[in-house]
């Protein structure tokens, strides 16, 4: 309990109430993992670190969307940290990985996406009954003995492309702000005006 001397400090503030928010629903994830609407069983899994054959994973609740369309994951205690041998994880992924990309790709590219090696930032969606690992901030202290085959079941959607887009969008919004439709119309009008002027010059 804080004493009198710290009364001037701002109070703790809780984050958005996730339970009241709608889930983020990328179409392929909805189709493959949440047809029954049970988004609470879907997890968001990130390769956070790769070090000497050990993959450090962060397993988070499936994100929800706030009123402004921003992803909400919850506090640091709601995610779990798992260490696993990278080779074992890759072996499991070879059996279970389903890459999700927005553009059409040929079969060869699709296969390369399915078996590509791990990279920090790779992100997966999977349905997990009991999330593994330790809750709380920071890395796990234990040996990297978790076998992802015990808890990572088919299908595991490789949503790295969508996750990177989401991260980049959030960074850009945070550092550069967002614009509304009014400004979009103004920008559109200016572009149209410049295009017209360029067309006249060419003519």
């Amino acid at each position, binding site marked *: 309990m*804080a*004493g*009198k*001397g*710290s009364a*001037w*400090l*701002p*109070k*703790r*503030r809780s*984050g958005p109430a996730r339970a009241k928010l709608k889930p983020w629903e990328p179409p392929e994830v909805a189709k493959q993992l949440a047809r029954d609407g049970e988004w609470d069983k879907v997890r*968001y899994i*990130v390769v*956070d*670190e790769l*070090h*000497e054959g*050990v993959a*450090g994973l*962060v397993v*988070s609740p499936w*994100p929800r969307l*706030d009123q402004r369309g*921003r*992803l*909400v*994951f*919850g*506090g*640091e205690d709601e*995610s779990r*940290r798992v*260490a696993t041998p990278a080779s074992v994880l890759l072996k499991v992924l070879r059996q279970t990985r389903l890459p999700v990309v927005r553009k059409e790709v040929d079969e060869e590219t699709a296969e390369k996406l399915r078996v590509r090696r791990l*990279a*920090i*930032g*790779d*992100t997966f969606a999977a349905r997990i009954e009991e999330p593994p690992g330790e809750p*709380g*901030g*920071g*890395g*796990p*202290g*234990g*040996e*990297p003995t978790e076998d992802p085959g015990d808890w990572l079941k088919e299908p595991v959607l490789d949503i*790295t492309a969508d*996750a*990177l887009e*989401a*991260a*980049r969008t*959030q*960074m850009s*919004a*945070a*550092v550069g*702000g967002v614009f509304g439709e009014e400004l979009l119309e103004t920008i559109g009008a200016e572009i149209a005006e410049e295009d017209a002027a360029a067309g006249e010059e060419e003519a």
Partner: protein
Amino acid sequence: MPATDVDTKLLGKTGGFLAACRPTDLVYFTLNVGDGDTQLLLLPEHEKGKRYCMVVDCIRAEKLFKLIEDLADTGLLGEVEPLLALVVATHPHDDHISGMAALLRRFGNEHIGELWEPGYYHTSGAYIEMMRELEDLDIGHLQPAGGTTRYLDQVRLTVLAPGIVLRNKFDSYGVNINNASIVLKIDFPAARILERGPDRTLMRLGSTQTLILGGDAQTHSWGQVLTDFPQLGPASTAVTDALRKSGGTTPLDAQVFKVPHHGSKHGLNLELVEAIHPAISIVSSVHAGGKYHFPHDVTQAALREAIDPISSKPEDHHKPDPELNILYTASREVKGARKPTDVGPLGTVGLLVGTGGRQEIWRFGDEPTDDVDLSKGRPMRPEG
């Protein structure tokens, strides 16, 4: 006895930490949070009873909150706005920023002056949460690169890394996320002008102290730091002496070195530590291995050899780490030389860095999941 452990004989009696903090001290805490980083710096008082603070990385936010509350309750942190003049998220790994969203949300516009982060975006929930909270704030924000300099009253901050070449490669898979780390050099006191009425004098301060906080930067990043911040010896000639010029610069010399990446073998090499030549080195990691087995033996060997060189004298042995002031948040206190028995964790490191060159080391005996109890602080007095 493991090299990270400390004999009871090197520890003083419990108590007296608050009384030992002088108004002119910079107070630096490396919290024991396990395999991860949370650092709190209390800058020297800028007016009686008032200090600004810096936070460098934040996990286990509740532990940091409780420490800040206790520091305010004891009067070491008087009411000031913004309390956190600068918050730095060195890089977006979960073990450095998982508590950052909670920190931004709690201290908000009124109590955070600026947030620095490297501009390396990451897909993790912790990163996206942090940036969503930042979007809701109206505070200063910077994505600094090597060479950025900022003064906070008597403290000068210089960003050593990421160098601009690394910075310009972020939007690719070409830069390891660890090498995105913001590495900070903190010089104190930076104020050099003595004013007496209408007279001003440029002081040559012999006692400036420097801290280098290494984030998780790896040797790729440090290689560029060594190029960008060359050590230049003085050119002492009659002319340069007469002009009071060319005193040389040793920008990487530091009294305190927060060892990069929890003691990973990729976090440093011998030349780097020789350039820094720290009086005190601090490693933040878990005890007994952890998932990556930090700190690595080769890192410890490089630290020891740079501080206490014996390679050319093979019959010699390094002094124990505590005597070389190589400190680990994971250290255990042990009693007895022949059959050492475990007394308990040494935990959070508190450093008092004085204007006159003084450094005092304090330990708080906390496990990663414990709060820091300021009344349990014990001074550590290295022998030899």
